[in-house]
């Protein structure tokens, strides 16, 4: 007789089978075929990773299953979604509601906006049990409390009336997980559940998710843009591109032997911790192998920088920046020091709230520092003198994280690029300035024809190129890149990173490269500083810092990066 101690709890229920799903969005601009004939199946107990870039249709596919898409504008044109013998697309509303949250649960991307700010967390986690009549309100709260403790939200035991805004992002996402799993569903749909979280928090949340789902025998559809992250978790990976599934295979085979050129590209264009390529491969290299972009860089063959002989361009000494709050001042930057050498890239890593952005902004004097010194080319910059200030601002520029928010939607590209030149009185005539702008646009891979367009006519990657061009208009020596690729898909990210590197080589630029993503920082930087709670934890050459981190915090940051993203020749 076979032993049945702790058998893996696999339900007979819970086969999801999507056949030829077609979803389109009917907008004023026309019809967008977001999902264009997707086949996908999930067996009980299986963890499937659904990977694709923004706009690939992965989230739309995921939201179609429980029919959570806003209709209109979304319309399911064709297909079948079979859930244990029931066609979900042809069910009465009431039947679908009986499945939502009970048989199939869902976790969404942004834990900040996905919890109701007006209800206590405990009540929200208990709600699915109440809705489906699985427990009395009192019992439901008890079960919810147990589940919350299980995912690590102990706070509810002492504070049962705590509201979402009293929790951190990571804790809220744990609460979302508890809410989805409190009814012990058969299938969990997780739509980018850790994208909005810091790496270390992401690692913890993923562990909890995986453990709990394995324990409860829940199958998972894990939607993510991050192939490396999915590799940590999924048994099988499905890759979507432009509304279609281009490849699906078990995780090991996808990585060791990708078939489709897009999948090959996705694997190749991530910067990893172990490799130090001069240039990242882009999706274009794989999809249109003859396009020949960015070849300048390959020819350039970056001279390796000898940091010891490079003069110091910028030095930060004991910088303190405080922000007033109701509970007294908070030190965002707490005595940080930094030396940046001319022509190098200095990486600055840390989690959100570590003070890295504040440090970057106070270097540019966009945020006022309380104490400490900032030396530029050996001189303390006095901002009292307007001429000094203008000269200083001209030689230092910044590129922000969100190219959507940092371009004025009511200014054309021409206006946006001409403005800094006008401010600093550059160029002899208008024609002179426009010639310069056109040259810059060409340098960042755009052209003259874009001059009269508005920001909304561009994709995210193109907008960031515009921001890069704008930063270059004043011919600066030093540029702060503040999380400038964080909001981007890997393929776009690779293009922008390549651009920044080739500009650095051709113009001898110095960068302060701020990011929460250690692998991106590692790719870009000569030296790296690690920040935690406003303090510098560690400082060193990029390679040394990764090979032999001195502080436990740096170690933790490295360990939190999914294995597949650490090495380019990752094999399971």
């Amino acid at each position, binding site marked *: 007789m076979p032993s049945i101690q702790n058998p893996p709890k696999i339900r007979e229920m819970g086969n999801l089978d999507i056949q030829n799903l077609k979803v389109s969005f009917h907008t004023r601009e026309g019809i967008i075929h977001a999902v264009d004939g997707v086949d996908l199946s999930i067996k009980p107990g299986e963890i499937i990773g659904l990977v694709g870039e923004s706009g690939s249709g992965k989230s739309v596919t995921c939201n179609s299953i429980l029919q959570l898409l806003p209709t209109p504008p979304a319309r399911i044109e064709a297909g079948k979604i079979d859930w244990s013998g029931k066609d979900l697309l042809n069910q009465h509303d009431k039947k679908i509601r009986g*499945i*939502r*949250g009970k048989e199939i649960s*869902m976790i969404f991307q942004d834990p900040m*906006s*996905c919890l109701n*700010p007006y209800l206590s967390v405990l009540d929200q986690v208990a*709600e699915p049990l109440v809705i489906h009549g699985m427990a009395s309100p009192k019992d439901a709260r008890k079960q919810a409390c147990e589940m919350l403790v299980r995912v690590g939200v102990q706070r509810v035991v002492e504070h049962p009336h705590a509201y979402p805004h009293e929790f951190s992002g990571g804790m809220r996402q744990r609460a979302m997980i508890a809410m989805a799993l409190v009814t012990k569903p058969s299938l969990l749909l997780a739509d980018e559940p850790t994208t909005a979280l810091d790496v270390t928090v992401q690692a913890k949340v993923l562990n909890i998710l995986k453990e709990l789902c394995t324990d409860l025998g829940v199958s998972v559809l894990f939607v993510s843009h991050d192939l490396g992250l999915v590799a940590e978790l999924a048994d099988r990976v499905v890759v979507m591109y432009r509304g279609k599934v281009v490849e699906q295979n078990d995780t090991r085979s996808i990585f060791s032997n990708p078939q489709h050129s897009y999948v090959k590209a996705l694997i190749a264009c991530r910067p990893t911790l172990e490799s130090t390529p001069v240039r990242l491969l882009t999706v274009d290299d794989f999809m249109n192998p003859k396009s020949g972009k960015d070849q300048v860089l390959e020819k350039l063959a970056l001279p390796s920088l000898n940091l010891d002989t490079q003069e110091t361009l910028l030095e930060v000494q004991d910088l303190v920046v405080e922000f007033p709050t109701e509970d007294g001042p908070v030190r965002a930057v707490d005595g940080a020091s930094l030396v940046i050498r001319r022509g190098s890239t200095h990486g600055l890593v840390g989690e959100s709230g570590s003070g890295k952005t504040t440090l970057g902004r106070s270097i540019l004097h966009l945020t006022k520092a309380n104490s400490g010194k900032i030396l530029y080319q050996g001189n303390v910059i006095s901002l009292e003198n307007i001429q000094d200030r203008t000269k200083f601002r001209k030689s230092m520029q910044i590129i922000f994280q969100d190219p959507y928010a940092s371009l004025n939607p009511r200014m054309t590209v021409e206006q946006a690029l001409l403005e800094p030149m006008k401010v600093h009185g550059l160029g002899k005539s208008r024609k002179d300035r426009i010639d310069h702008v056109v040259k810059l646009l060409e340098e960042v891979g755009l052209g003259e024809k874009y001059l009269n367009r508005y920001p909304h006519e561009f994709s995210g990657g193109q907008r960031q190129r515009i921001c890069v061009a704008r930063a270059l208009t004043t011919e600066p020596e030093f540029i702060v890149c503040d999380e400038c690729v964080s909001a981007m898909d890997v393929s776009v990210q690779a293009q922008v990173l390549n651009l920044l590197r080739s500009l650095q080589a051709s113009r001898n630029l110095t960068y302060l490269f701020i990011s929460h993503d250690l692998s991106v920082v590692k790719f870009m930087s000569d030296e790296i500083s690690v920040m935690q709670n406003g303090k510098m934890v560690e400082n060193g050459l990029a390679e040394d810092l990764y090979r032999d981190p001195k502080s436990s915090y740096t170690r933790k940051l490295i360990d939190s990066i999914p294995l597949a993203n650490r090495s380019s020749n990752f094999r399971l």
Partner: protein
Amino acid sequence: MKKFVLSRVVQAVPTLWVIATLTFFMTRYAPGGPFDTEKAIPQEIKVKLESHFGLDRPLFDQYLLYLKNLLRGDLGPSFKYPGWEVSELIATAFPVSLTLGVLSLGIALLIGIPAGIIAALRKNTWLDYLPMSLSMAGICLPTFVLGPLLIYIFSTQLGLFPPLGWYGPADWVLPSFTLGLFYAAYVARLTRAGMLETLQQDYVRTARAKGASPWRVVTRHALRGGLLPVVTYLGPAFAGLISGSFIIESIFFIPGLGKFFVTAAFNRDYTMVLGTVLFYAALIILLNLLVDLLQAWLDPKARQAQ
């Protein structure tokens, strides 16, 4: 919470003082006086009257005296209603205005909120267009048109309610609706806008993903956020409602507070003007405080801010 309420009450004192001062000097510097009538009264009587009410003293002395009396809660005697204290006049008229105001507000909320919710849920269908065009009409239609219209239909033609007077509950119906429908129109539009905003929120999708019914999604998840703009509007609206409406009172012959606002100003009834303005100001301050408390009750984040 107690601290918050206390600090707001303390803050109200300088506000009321500024209002009292401005009103005092503005009325005094306005041309004319309480005892200027079309038919000239004998000089010696006017002098006697003015000395009786202390109007012959230096202006600043009068001002100090007024403030001193005010601190004791004494609003002074009315110049135009002999033998009546201003506070007595307000005390007799306010209950009438309060009744009318509360009823109108009730009608405004009972009609406006459901209409707004339905319009938001059925956006761009006839269930949206119909209430929204009606509410636009309600906003555009002045009360002095709606009032007589209601009197004509429900009193003259159908004989259901008395056309005027303020004696019993039957008299309350037509004026309350006249006033309430106007506010209902505003409330409906605010509710619709608030609900449309909230229904798009990610947490509403979360609620749907849990299997919540449309009823539950609206009542438990969307309504609180959706009603916040309405609550903000309620404070000043309610103060306006219960401090009386001159037009409604004139149409329906209601002995409310509204007429004092207008007649006192025309009559240069200095103490009456000051009394009603201060009463109205205090009412607004009080109601805004109540609105803030109500918002805090609805929104835990605002609660923390307090």
